[in-house]
């Protein structure tokens, strides 16, 4: 479980996050949603330690990450797998080398073992025949899959995904969403997904945190999000005509 307490962050006197509290549960797909520019990605970067918060604490299964010494920080980070918005694959490495990279750097496994593990992860994400290709030679959806394979190769306890569906067609988006959900259940990871895609929210949002202008103003699940009476959240979710129609149909 990941716990956030009173988290605040500002850049150049501009308050980006204010007093955020919340928990992300183990074995569940936790979503952080909100419109563009509301601070979702900054919140995610604070959680994984890429941005130092001004105030507040973040703890990973009771271990204080914000005030941890470099050794503990390092060991927690090695339990984190992250899928970046643009996949962040290393251009100079092949698909297989990208997936093997965390094993090369952080384990003492033999080459054959590493290769087997990388192939196992690539198979898990449905990419068996792309091992020798470079990131520039595969599609955006495939890059996301490789990113997921790299994130889980070390059996990460925590999986973070920053807008996993950005730039993908609806069909591929659903596949990626389901893959994230399946992996969360299979590996029992604490998964945190930042998104503004309502399809993802309804599809995989077991726990949802809604951020509006840097503040958390709603928390719940995909089962009760359509029933919300929070005006800002209603504006966010019902911007989509399909969802408006779906709600109208449900109400009638």
């Amino acid at each position, binding site marked *: 479980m990941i716990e956030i307490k009173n988290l605040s962050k500002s850049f150049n006197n501009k308050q980006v996050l204010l007093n955020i509290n919340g928990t992300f549960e183990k074995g569940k797909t936790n979503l952080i949603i909100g419109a563009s520019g509301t601070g979702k990605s900054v919140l995610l*970067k604070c959680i*994984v*330690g*890429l941005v130092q918060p001004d105030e507040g604490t973040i703890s990973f299964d009771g271990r204080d990450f914000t005030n941890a010494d*470099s050794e503990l*920080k*390092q*060991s*927690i*980070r*090695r339990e*984190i797998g*992250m899928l*970046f*918005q*643009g996949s*962040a*694959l*290393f*251009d100079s490495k092949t698909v297989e080398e990208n997936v093997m*990279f*965390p094993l*090369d*750097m*952080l384990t003492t496994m033999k080459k054959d073992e590493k290769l087997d593990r990388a192939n196992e992860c690539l198979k898990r994400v449905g990419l068996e025949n792309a091992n020798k290709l470079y990131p520039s030679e595969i599609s955006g959806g495939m890059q996301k899959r490789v990113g997921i394979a790299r994130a889980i190769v070390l059996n990460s306890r925590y999986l*973070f995904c920053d807008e996993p569906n950005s730039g993908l067609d609806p069909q591929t988006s659903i596949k990626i969403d389901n893959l994230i959900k399946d992996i969360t259940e299979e590996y029992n990871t604490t998964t945190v997904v930042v998104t503004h895609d309502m399809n993802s929210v309804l599809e995989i949002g077991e726990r949802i945190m809604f951020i509006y202008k840097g503040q958390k103003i709603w928390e719940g699940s995909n089962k009760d999000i359509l029933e919300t009476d929070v005006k800002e959240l209603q504006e966010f979710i019902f911007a989509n005509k399909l969802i408006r129609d779906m709600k109208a149909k449900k109400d009638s």
Partner: protein
Amino acid sequence: MKSFGKYLILLGSLFTNRERFNVYVKRIVDEAILIGIDSVFIVVIVSTFIGAVTAVQTAYNLVSPLIPLYIIGTIVRDMTVLELAPTITCVVLAGKVGSNIAGGLGTMRITEQVDALEVMGINSASYLILPKIIAAILTFPLLVIIAAFLSIYGGYLAGVLTGVITEKEYIYGIRYQFSGYNITFAIIKSLVFAFLISSISSYQGFYTKGGALEVGQSSTQAVTNSCIAVLCADYLLAQLLL
């Protein structure tokens, strides 16, 4: 001053939380190929022509019959070893290697590849920058030695083939009052320039913010700052060591 402080902090961070030794060995070999071997061609071309031009222009300026012709060889040798081989080669390398380092790191930064390393718990600065600096320190002196040799040989070709000096005179000239310390001085210069170019370019690339436009700006800044640093260091080293 703020940038200089940040640069020093970056250099300090290269030596904290380092990865395993064998990780660096492989990275250093890869970088040495990129920085050193891939630069051999440009160094060969530039140094050969510079030597040739130096010989021809020295001959053009030697109008007095009182000055022996072998002095052309001596001048080519001293100019090459003291200044042209280490400094001009390194200024050329600042353009080629510096922009490559800054562009590569800048692209990695804006495409979140650096963040990906950090999230994995890897010291991204140490993993990415330290091998570049070590590879530059290892390969630049070799490139300068090649440049010095080819520059003197270029002077020989230009001088002898155009008939301004005989082969015997040129060989005598380049051996005349030879000081071995000049070679040491050239190597010291190349080591300092290697460190400056690789570290300044890495700094510019590593702290790139924004998009493709900013990557281009970082590369330009890396080349400009590296050249200025090389020229300043050139003067300081000449004052201190000669």
